[in-house]
């Protein structure tokens, strides 16, 4: 034990003015650093400390990362698939198509004649003839009513022309074309078929909403799970927080390590999610290519781009920070010295 009675050494040197040529701030023993330097130092300290704590508990850290990784990977994979579908939909030439039903008396030769004449027009790309016999047979096959059709005395269907307008024409030219086609001799009825297009676009919209909704739910779940993890971390360090508050650590000082912990958990989860999405997509790539080949498309499944991967890690980090923010806001206030 030291000599208790002597003047206390650690107070020596107090209030000593800086000597000539001495930089006050850099002098050993002068005191705390400049507030900005201190702020940066505290951030570095908190970042390193919380990373250190995570690394020293590898199992629970890995579990947290997995939970976040899975919660992020699922909507991310769906988003990548959705963007593939949207891109694929763009490549499909979606010609609005006219179906022209001819008079019942029109023969197949006359029908071909009308078709050839129509193809001369600049606003028409292609005209194909659907003859009544084939049309009836197809109808029978599609509906399963072959026996009923065989029992018919005569074919009730007329010959049909399928008219594809040129890709470049606008809506008003389309109306003009529709008028022209209606007034063509031999044409009984014109059906401008846009319904399938509307169905297709609505389906895409539905899919898009579904993916966004699922993604939001997963993300909110991830925030809550991480928030709970942080609540437990706060509880585990209650004694330390109380002591720090008692000896002059402010709310920000106490909060900082937990914010960094959330950030690291989020970034780690995001990185894991990148890996999961890449694995998932590589599993899907080959069957998807085969499926598309069956539809005569040489489309290749587009994977996660580098930018998208970065965004995923960034989203992970932001989510981590966000849930740490809400967890510390709710729970740190309750940890006060008694």
């Amino acid at each position, binding site marked *: *034990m*030291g000599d*208790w*009675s*002597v*003047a*206390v*050494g*650690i*107070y*020596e040197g*107090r209030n000593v003015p800086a000597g000539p040529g001495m930089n006050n701030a850099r002098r*050993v*023993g*002068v*005191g*705390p*650093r400049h*507030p900005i*330097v*201190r702020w940066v*130092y*505290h951030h570095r*300290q908190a970042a390193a400390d919380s990373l250190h704590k995570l690394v020293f508990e590898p199992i629970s850290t890995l579990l947290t990362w997995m939970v976040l990784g899975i919660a992020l990977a699922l909507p991310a994979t769906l988003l990548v698939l959705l963007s593939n579908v949207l891109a694929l939909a763009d490549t499909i030439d979606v010609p609005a198509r006219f179906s022209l039903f001819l008079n019942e008396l029109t023969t197949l030769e006359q029908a071909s004649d009308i078709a050839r004449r129509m193809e001369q027009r600049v606003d028409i790309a292609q005209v194909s003839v659907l003859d009544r016999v084939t049309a009836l047979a197809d109808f029978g096959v599609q509906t399963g009513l072959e026996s009923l059709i065989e029992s018919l005395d005569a074919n009730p269907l007329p010959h049909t022309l399928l008219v594809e307008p040129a890709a470049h024409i606008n809506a008003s030219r389309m109306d003009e074309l529709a008028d022209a086609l209606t007034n063509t001799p031999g044409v009984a009825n014109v059906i401008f078929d846009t319904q399938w297009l509307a169905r297709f676009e609505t389906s895409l919209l539905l899919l898009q909403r579904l993916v966004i909704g699922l993604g939001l739910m997963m993300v909110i779940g991830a925030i809550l799970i991480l928030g709970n993890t942080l609540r437990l971390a706060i509880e585990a360090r209650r*004694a*330390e927080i*109380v*002591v*720090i*508050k*008692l*000896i*002059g*650590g*402010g*709310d*920000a*000082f106490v909060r900082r390590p937990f914010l960094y912990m959330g950030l690291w958990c989020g970034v780690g989860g995001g990185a894991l999610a990148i890996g999961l999405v890449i694995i998932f997509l590589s599993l899907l790539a080959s069957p998807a290519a085969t499926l598309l080949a069956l539809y005569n498309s040489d489309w290749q499944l587009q994977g996660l781009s580098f930018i998208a991967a970065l965004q995923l890690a960034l989203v992970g980090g932001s989510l981590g920070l966000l849930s740490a923010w809400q967890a510390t806001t709710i729970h740190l206030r309750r940890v006060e*010295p008694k």
Partner: protein
Amino acid sequence: MIVFDRVGKRFDNHDAIRDISLTIDSGEMVFLTGHSGAGKSTFLRLLMLLERPTSGCLMVNHRDTSRVKRRAIGTYRRDFGIVFQDHQLLFDRTVFDNVALPLHIAGFEMRDVNRRVRAALDKVGLLQRERANPAVLSGGEQQRVGIARAVVARPKILIADEPTGNLDPQLSAEIMSLFEAFNQVGVMVVIASHDLALISRLRHRIITLNNGRLVGGGGHL
């Protein structure tokens, strides 16, 4: 300087502190005594802003404490060194890191931290134990670690709540002379203690509380 001006603190149904007015000068050493429940703890808690007065005005270093906002409480507390009866040490780190904590909060440089922590530990006679975990230390040693932590950042005001509560008379006397040594270099020292035999030997002002009222050692205002 600490000025209590008609300070009162009322909890739900009783007054812990009633109408106390007193001044403690910078560089002074005072004892705060009274039976348990007399208001000693509340007195100290008001100083630390762990509680706020319900009436009157409390000035610390010419600053009205009611003006200290929640965000500024940390900075405010850094003017104090506090020694707790139950030590409040952290058992997940070494003696050195416990003592270094106030310096980290205040943002001292590493070189400076090492120098000051060693000086403080040397002064309480525990330099050899700096790498030990405080849990393996005796009660008296833990109290000295607490004192080292309280003085390491060189606060202007040192507050101790029953610092000798669990110690034998000889250790208690040693702890008290340590506080006197700090006082001799200009630190204000406020010690709450019910060990009248010990504190009356030490010829410092004794502030006595009874049932929340000031009954002795009021001093000027």
